[in-house]
């Protein structure tokens, strides 16, 4: 049985374990951005720089100092939660994240949740009668969803709902109130559902089909329990562990990296967009902040997944 004490121990263990993970992730990222990433000094120079100016900007970016010293300084600042300023715009990285992460969340979370709910509902129906009409439809849908490029899907949605039907804005994020939010979130939601439905449906179906063939579900079936009860009480509950793990681990991706393609094509000023810009331009403060925050969020997700697993699965609680 899970007690508050054991939960605290688990959280403490996870947080301790997060330190080497954070160090490892930041060290690898720092090494990659310093030695293999774009040299931002050249992005910041004008059209006709002198060699002295090149050196000066390189000095200002700290490129003249030893790697370990730079990494050490970065860690020091990170412990003080000083994320610095974007080298390109001068905006504080904290402000940048505070501005963009909520936008990603607001724009993509509805599609994320709806996509999972839809995939789960379809997967349950498909798993109940493998090879049946719904299952065949689901297999077709998942193949289509996985093979269709997100770019094509987004362009098609823009053309249908933005131009042809003229229901929703083609792009942008001019959200001032609930009505404008609903109008602007519609196409990203459809795009998110379309982008993830195929993968989720295939995964959920496979898990549910395996669970439905296990003794508890088969026994419930033999007892003649209603279909809805078997699916929700015996099948879904038993399959919840891998499903939850998949869902919880997707959350940091939505929060931090957003969905680059969806954000880019739909003009959503979210975290994915700034991450992409930072990667291509070599804006190290932004990039390292995103990497560090992602690592922290993954640790949180890992802990949350463990706690939820204990909550839903008595076997883990007993262990």
């Amino acid at each position: 049985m899970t007690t508050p004490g054991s939960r605290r121990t688990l959280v403490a263990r996870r947080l301790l374990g997060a330190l080497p993970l954070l160090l490892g992730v930041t060290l690898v990222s720092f090494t990659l951005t310093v030695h293999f990433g774009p040299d931002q000094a050249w992005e910041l120079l004008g059209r006709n720089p002198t060699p002295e100016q090149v050196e000066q900007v390189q000095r200002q970016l700290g490129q003249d100092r030893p790697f370990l010293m730079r990494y050490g300084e970065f860690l020091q600042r990170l412990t003080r939660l000083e994320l610095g300023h974007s080298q390109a715009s001068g905006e504080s990285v904290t402000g940048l994240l505070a501005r963009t992460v909520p936008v990603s969340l607001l724009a993509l979370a509805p599609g994320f949740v709806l996509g999972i709910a839809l995939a789960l509902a379809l997967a349950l129906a498909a798993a109940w009668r493998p090879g049946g009409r719904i299952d065949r439809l689901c297999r077709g849908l998942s193949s289509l969803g996985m093979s269709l490029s997100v770019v094509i899907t987004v362009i098609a949605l823009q053309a249908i709902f933005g131009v042809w039907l003229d229901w929703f804005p083609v792009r942008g994020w001019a959200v001032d109130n609930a009505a404008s939010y609903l109008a602007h979130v519609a196409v990203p939601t459809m795009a998110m559902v379309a982008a993830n439905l195929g993968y989720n449906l295939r995964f959920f179906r496979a898990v549910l089909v395996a669970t439905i063939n296990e003794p508890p579900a088969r026994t419930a079936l033999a007892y003649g329990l209603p279909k809805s009860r078997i699916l929700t009480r015996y099948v879904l509950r038993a399959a919840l562990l891998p499903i939850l793990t998949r869902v919880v681990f997707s959350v940091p991706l939505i929060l931090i990296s957003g969905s680059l393609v969806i954000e880019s094509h739909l003009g959503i000023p979210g975290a994915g967009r700034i991450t992409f810009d930072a990667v291509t331009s070599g804006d190290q403060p932004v990039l390292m902040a995103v990497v560090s925050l992602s690592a922290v969020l993954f640790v949180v997700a890992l802990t949350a997944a463990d706690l939820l697993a204990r909550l839903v699965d008595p076997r883990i609680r007993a262990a």
Partner: protein
Amino acid sequence: MPPARLPWLLALTLLLAACQQSEPEPLKVYRHAIDGIPASLDPAHADDVYAATLVTNLYDTLYRYKYLARPYELTPSLADGFPEVSEDGLTYRIRLRDDARFADDEAFPGGVGRPVRATDVVYSLKRHFLPDTRSRGDWLWRDRIVGLDEGTRLSDPDAPVEGLQVEDPLTVKIRLRRPYPQFTHTLAMALSAIVAREAVEHYGRSFGVNPVGSGPFVLARFDESRAVLEPNEHFRRGVIDLDAEGYDPARHDRFGLARIDGLTFPLLDRLEVHFIPEPTTRWTSFTASSGVDVVMVPPELSERVLAERDPIRLRPEIASRYRSWHGPEAGFVFHGFNMDNPEIGHHPDPGRAARNRALRCALRDAFDWQARNRAFYHGLGQIFPGAIPPILPAYDPDADADSISHSPRRARARLAEAGWQTDNLPRLVYGLESSVHQRQMFEQFRAWAQAIGFPASRLEARAYASFGEYARALGTRQVDLFLLGWTLAYPDAQYSLQLFYGPNAAPGANSFNYANPTFDQLFEQASSLPAGPRRTRLYRQLNRIVIEDCVIIGSLARTRLFLWKPHVLMLPDRDMVGGHFLRFVDIADQGG
């Protein structure tokens, strides 16, 4: 009521309530679209069209280009008249308007903007030489203004600079080291926009996202998707005088511009600038009713809008729905050789130098500009010899076109005559930005080179992940052949010919690393002459020198084709005028 219906009912109520709460749209909103995202709105960083489009509307420059006059003509903006220039061309006295004020901002005492003064002009120019500014435009004035010599770095904005003097609160006197007729043009560039020292110091590093200027608009919102600008209530520039802006009924009547004559700036209640790098999305947004109001048609989408290319004629369904304008860009694209590599460029041995020149000329002869234009610019580019594009007054329509004619036979003859054979041809590195488009351009070039006997294995493509990386490769002389575009910041051939000026060698603008004392001497001579036939002759001579030396393979000026919705009254421009035209944009009444 069944409980299951309750959430739906709540959601519907919320939606209806939200719809009722939505504010009415302002009367006149114009949604502009550009194909890139400005990183910073600090004028000292505004050397690209994306930042300049916003900076010229949030800040004001001493001068600007007339809205409609072509060729481009300067006109005062923040300055009260043209500068008084001394006879020797070295002293400029510029008087400011007395009604110009900075927009209200918390950077000022009480949050109220103060008048723009001569000290602001001096500070704005000095600021480019403060290391913390990381100016991208100091090169325009470096070694030009007395006291701002090569290598000058100011440590304090209060440090006196001999060539920058405040005569009285509204007059600034600038002393140059040598005549610089292009100087007034540099004061029309976004880089020269006037900033307030209080704002720069108040916002510190975040000044780039907190603009405080004296332009026609103030920033209401700015993110990676769009910028929203609203009128600056302190912006007073009298009424619009269309005749003074170069209005010509024969050319401009069809754009409905006559109705803005006599109105006051700015004409919009809100200006939105949307950043849409993806061409398809830009087009989709334009065709949607709530999308952007203007599109610069990307070449790859020209099929959708053009019925004919030469002369350009729109499809009837497009012509009936939108207003349009097309013209050549103020710039060009070209290929160049790295003359610093003795394998293909300058060589101390005159014999080898001559052989290298023959090789460069052969590769240029192999280049098929017509095919390049058809394949990558949809036949809409204008091909011209050298580096003086058709938009410039110094362009020579009668110039010898040999350097842009495709002649594999002549190329092979040149190679044979210079003793180049398959086994002694050098290995060359062709630099490109990592994209399918540029890779295809390389393959096309390599095929032409192969056709004249240059082995494919000797031409190696080296791709760079971003423009910054590509700039570094050029700046550190790592590539032998390169493709570049050059956009003119002012309408003077000096701006394009400086690409070959020796002291500008890499990491400067002279990516060719061309070093020719004769060229440099003539360039310096031409650069200090006022506009006129003598200067034009010199510019053309300089152009012929680089053509003769086979330093450049080029060039091609792309055609800008704009479409915009009929209720928008404007003539768009993204070149010299850049964002300045936005203060003239008006929206017709319903059905207007």
